[in-house]
């Protein structure tokens, strides 16, 4: 009796957990594919393209690491529902951009990104910026916040740390600080945040 109860609850729990985990991965993959069309359709005149009816957000940029073969479409807003579909971006009033994504999906590759590496950001208007990783550090989210008041010459990438953690919701975050690859930016191509 106890054995069958155990079996049933194990089966139910196991399948549920696998379903949950699988759903996250599928959403992450599907999101990127579905967003392509919206990103392609967006331009300087029509920057906001709703990817599908009822979507929570829309793509604003593409993050590109040619050496690693990584392309990620970045969405507007860095809260949990948005992050399920893709990395999310928030922007401060002075031009500082923050991109956050899950450590087990879109930002898994950050595990191996070291200072000195470069990546590019392609905005919906077609302009491209080149950035270089200046700093890589692990911080405690209980004692550290992100200063959104910084200037436009900084891009911050955030994901959870460590990548090998077997439980979720830990306090540590990996923070990558990027600076423009060829000195200070001369013009700010970036779209103002609505």
């Amino acid at each position, binding site marked *: 009796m*106890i*054995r069958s109860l*155990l*079996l049933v*609850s*194990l*089966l139910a*729990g*196991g*399948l*549920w*957990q*696998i*379903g*949950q*985990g*699988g*759903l*996250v*991965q599928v959403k*992450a993959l599907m999101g990127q594919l579905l967003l392509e069309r919206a990103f392609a359709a967006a331009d300087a005149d029509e920057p906001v393209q709703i990817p599908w009816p009822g979507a929570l957000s829309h793509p604003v940029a593409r993050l590109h690491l040619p050496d690693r073969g990584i392309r990620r479409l970045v969405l507007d807003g*860095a*809260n*949990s529902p948005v*992050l*399920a579909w893709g990395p*999310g971006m*928030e922007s401060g*009033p002075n031009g500082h951009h*923050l991109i*956050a*994504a*899950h*450590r*087990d*999906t879109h*930002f898994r590759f950050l595990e191996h990104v070291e200072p000195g590496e470069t990546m590019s950001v392609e905005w919906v208007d077609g302009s491209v910026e080149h950035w270089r990783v200046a700093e890589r550090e692990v*911080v*405690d*989210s*209980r*004692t*550290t*916040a*992100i*200063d*959104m*008041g*910084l*200037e436009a010459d900084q891009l911050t990438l*955030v*994901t*959870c740390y460590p990548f090998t953690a*077997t*439980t*979720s*919701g*830990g*306090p540590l*975050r990996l923070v990558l600080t990027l600076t423009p690859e060829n000195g200070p930016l001369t013009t700010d191509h970036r779209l103002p945040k609505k």
Partner: protein
Amino acid sequence: MYNFKRIIIMAWLLIVSPMLAADQPAQLWLHSGGDSERHPAMLLETDVDIEVSGMLGYTLVTQRFVNTSDQWAEGRYLFPLPDDSAVESLRIQIGDRVIEGEIQERGQARETYRTARNQGQATGLVEQQRANVFTTRVANIAPGETVDIQIGFRQTVQYRHGRFNLVFPTTVAPRFGQVPGSDGMTTPVREAGQAGDRALSLRVELRPGMELAALQSSHHLIETDYNGERWLVTMADEHQPISRDFELEWIPDPSRPIHGVVFQQHLGGLDHLLLMMVPPEEFTSDRTPREQILIIDTSGSMRGDPMDQARRSLLFALEKLRPGDRFNVIEFNHRTQALFDQPVAATNANIHRASRFVENLRAGGGTVMGPSLNKAMSYAEREGFIRQIVFITDGLIHNEDEVSAQVRREIGNSRLFNVGIGHGVNSQFLTDLARYGRGTYTRIADLDQINQRMGELIVQLGTPVLHDIELHWPGEAEIYPSRIPDLYTGEPLVVSARGEQLMGDVLVTGLSDGRPWQQKIPMESFQLAGGVAAHWARAGLRSRLDERFNGADPGLIRESVLDLALEYQLLSPFTSLVAVDQTPRRTRQAALRRHDLPTDLPHGRELAGVGDRVMMRAMPATDAGSESSLLRGALALLLIGLLLGHKRMTRDVEHEEERS
């Protein structure tokens, strides 16, 4: 088979338990309306202000948090306080609004809080969860806003053998474990080597009430300043590591005689006085004979080192008996056995016999402690002797109320000294009992402390510095404790009184070294101190709660405790602190507004490249948890396979056996 089942059950727990809400330990947790996510609020700084008058400490802790989320939020946090402390005030500053807490009946306070919270008012609530664990909740914190939570609590300064000692646990948050009845919250835990990041400023204003020989801090560098009446202690450097508790120690001039001092506070039309008497560090008397009854626990759990050490302590005590004293030794496990029928004179022959008895004591059997105490208290009291019962045990007392009631009924003029050995002891119970028995409680947690602690106790037992004490107040007074204990070396005597007109000298009389002794503390020497009334009220609360041992009706006790707690605005098992801002501040529009609220640059934090306006954003949650889910799922399926495979294997083996 049994082991296999156990593995399955453990694995099942491993897989299933993360699905049940697992609380993250940390400090102030912010909950947003309708959102199940919780964000840790960022602790910006902690400011501690302590005032000490004699043995009364009043501490104001101010912690500044910032709501780094983009939602209106409710914050909750738990904080343990030093033993014997009581929360007295709550003050919350949200943005530029200040709200002060007031004491209400517990259920009513919770209702007040809920109503205010749901109406969008800024509000806060402090509840007592356990004797020394309190929870605070603050509702309707705007996105990006800073919140200052200021909690005022009283604590008693410790005094042991010539040293006053005040501890502020810098871990005033962390202690791990679930607290029953507190919505399943866990108390914060601090990770090793991570605390130095927080800024702590600490300031102590000390009025010791006597000349000091030394003032020092055990773990921190301090600066002191003396103006002839009070000492001002500050941290020499605010960036000192705060991973160690702040501990301040002051030592009175050791050459002084018995020193009495009175602190005074006038509150609500009544005078409150607090008398503190500090014994001299060394005192011997050869004129007051004692009758010592030594009771020793010889139950099975004492086997080994504890028994060995207890035996040695007893031999030490026997050695210190003086000609003219009387004594007896009683052992108990599940039965009680006394060496002599009645206490006998401390002659060489009797002491020799007792030593042999003690050396032959062996541990074994159960623990029934009532009859041994009963026997000790039943001996007829002898004129001219002070009876001291020394009760040594390592056990948990199961029928506490019964033992307590028995002692209260029968203690008479005997003094009770309890010694608790090991970690399984109910210290609070033994302390209360000893207090009622006008003796002391000595706790020996580790066996290597036994010699030192027993040595100190034996010195105390030597003879009270002052006994049969009578206090003459300048008017009709309600005093606590109602039975005045003796004054022993190493323990100060603290008595508080309340009355309508207590303006006049206080006279203390008693017997010291066999002779009458008296001291007058003139009214002009009274020192004004803030905590006197609160101390009196707390002693009153404790005494009223203790009425249950005398068989009082729980309903009446609750009523009288509630009256006192409301009159003196004290937190108690039946009252909570609640603070409400009368103006509603949260509207639906505001709740939907994004967090583009600038906050002032938090003091004590450096943020590179910013002016006087800062925009803080909490770290986003960046873990979808898919891997842990997949891992747990795979583990579950693996186990199902194992379970089924195991079943088949066992069946196959059974078939084989049947065939052969």
